[in-house]
């Protein structure tokens, strides 16, 4: 479809993500002087948003994004947001990350559906960028990055015809087709059967794509975890009861320090026949993900 859709998709979903995180961090806000070591303060909230926004609007990243290209696969896009959400001290459990992504996607899908004219998608994007500027008012360098993106958006989309915007809107709607997640009711009663081989495959893929320097979590996470649910129990329950068809299969990046795991992987690799092309979806978004690793 349209090869100019990705920047709009990425920026709008990113904007929604920041709205939600900002809200959630405020809800868990503790006044600075009263906070314990592991609780959120106003300073922490601003820091998290600053970190994520400056990662999102990194110049090289944006340049890559604005090149004419087809949309990423859903899996690749999900992985990008997973990394983005972890660009700072904040940590999200799987269930919270899933909920965050569900909310982001459904909110933007709804906004695209409601646009009276296809060109209004651009206005929606500007709205998101305006809100993002509001989050980083105290940081002139990041503000400059966002302004640069504003300029790039105007340059790329300002002269497009109504017909081209209609194609962009159709491309977005095809991407969101069949996503019907009830964002208010995320508790469902089904068991998930874990597939250990699949997990190893994904870890292996992650290594191929370029490892990231994430400290391997050992024992309780150090401090700053954000919960998208109201209690820890709810979050745990959501994680256990998420139905298979809604699992995003994000690629979990973990430092390969476990000797046993290495051997296991080598054994599995030995059994793989390299007869076919690598999965198409892993080639898309590769460069972008690799770039994110260097940020």
């Amino acid at each position, binding site marked *: 479809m349209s*090869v*100019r859709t990705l920047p709009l998709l990425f920026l709008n979903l990113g904007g929604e993500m920041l709205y939600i995180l900002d809200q959630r961090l405020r809800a868990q806000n503790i006044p600075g002087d009263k906070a314990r070591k592991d609780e959120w303060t106003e300073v922490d909230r601003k820091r998290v948003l600053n970190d994520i926004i400056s990662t999102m609007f990194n110049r090289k990243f944006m340049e890559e994004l604005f090149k*004419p290209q087809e949309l990423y696969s859903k899996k690749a896009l999900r992985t990008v947001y997973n990394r983005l959400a972890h660009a700072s001290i904040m940590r999200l459990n799987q269930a919270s990350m899933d909920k965050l992504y569900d909310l982001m996607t459904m909110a933007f899908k709804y906004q695209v559906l409601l646009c009276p004219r296809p060109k209004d998608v651009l206005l929606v994007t500007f709205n998101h960028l305006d809100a993002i500027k509001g989050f980083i008012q105290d940081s002139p360098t990041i503000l400059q990055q966002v302004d640069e993106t504003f300029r790039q958006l105007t340059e790329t989309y300002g002269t497009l015809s*109504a*017909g081209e915007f*209609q194609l962009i809107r*159709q491309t977005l709607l*095809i991407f969101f*087709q069949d996503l019907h997640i009830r964002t208010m009711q995320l508790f469902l009663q089904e068991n998930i059967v874990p597939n250990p081989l699949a997990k190893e495959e994904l870890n292996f893929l992650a290594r191929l794509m370029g490892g990231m320097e994430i400290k391997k979590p050992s024992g309780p996470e150090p401090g700053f975890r954000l919960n998208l649910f109201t209690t820890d129990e709810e979050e745990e329950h959501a994680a256990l009861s998420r139905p298979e068809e809604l699992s995003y299969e994000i690629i979990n990046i973990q430092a390969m320090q476990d000797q046993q795991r290495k051997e296991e992987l080598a054994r599995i690799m030995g059994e793989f026949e390299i007869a076919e092309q690598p999965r198409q979806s892993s080639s898309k978004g590769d460069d972008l993900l690799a770039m994110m690793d260097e940020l």
Partner: protein
Amino acid sequence: MFRRERSIPLRGSAAALCNNLSVLQLPACNLMHYAVVHGPSAQLLSAAPEGVPLAQRQFHAKEGAGVSPPLITQVHWCVLPFRVLLVLTSHRGIQMYESDGSIMVYWHALDSGDTSSVQAVFARGIAASGHFICVGTWTGRVLVFDIPAKGPNIVLSEELAGHQTPVTDIATEPAQGQDSVADMVTADDSGLLCVWRSGSEFTLLTRIPGFGIPCPSVQLWQGIIAAGYGNGQVRLYEATTGTLHVQINAHARAICALDLAPEAGKLLSAAEDTFVHIWKLSRSPESGYIEVEHCHGECISDTQVCGARFCDPTGSSFAVTGYDLAEILRYSSV
């Protein structure tokens, strides 16, 4: 008055494309055939008159070069003098099948040539004209294929240049037998309409300029061009001269489909505002001016309509598809 009939379930939901429903009625075997685009696949199904689904078949766009599975832009039956072919257009090319979809008889790959990487490459807009099938492309060119009475010996006979922006839809009607009578209209993303006379060589008779808004759907009946626009307007033009006769602010959002019931002169318009309207076209006997009368409006609640067709030539029943909807909605008059 129309009442809602039993819906026909689809395997996959309908994609948010324009003109996303094609209907073929074969009176001989009293079956209705429907075709809907899902995205990278299209579905063909046949149903008994009461709507009981009987058989279904799925098609995928032929791969060709490229990274991701190509998307289908349109699927449409072409009724020719001696055969019926099912045509599928995608971001790779044009596929033609026997009417039941059993055998692919022809594949034409699109040549992206000098196209900059910024433009999307695709075919869109399908219509039969005599023993030709005309298909539009992203460059604005219309490909004319010569179809033999049977067999796969299909040949690209002509490329029509008239449009500068991607073609959206093509409409034809049987030639009236007189000379220089328009029997084909092509529309594009800029709203421009080109009016043609078919033949061994197609002739451009006149152009009707757009006004910056896409024209996603167009119909032709007895020398009357009905065009639906992205601002919800339906305009009726005299085909031979290109003169505007009627302008209707028919819908609150972009029109996505138009259809015609030739025996009754009924026009169906469907738009993203969830409404389907039926109009009666006629000509004033004294002046010859085109006249239109509103017959019926149907609200398809909470549905972004993407395709609509009459199910019979008198316009007494119609079918509708909607984005994200995995069924074909049917209505018939009481």
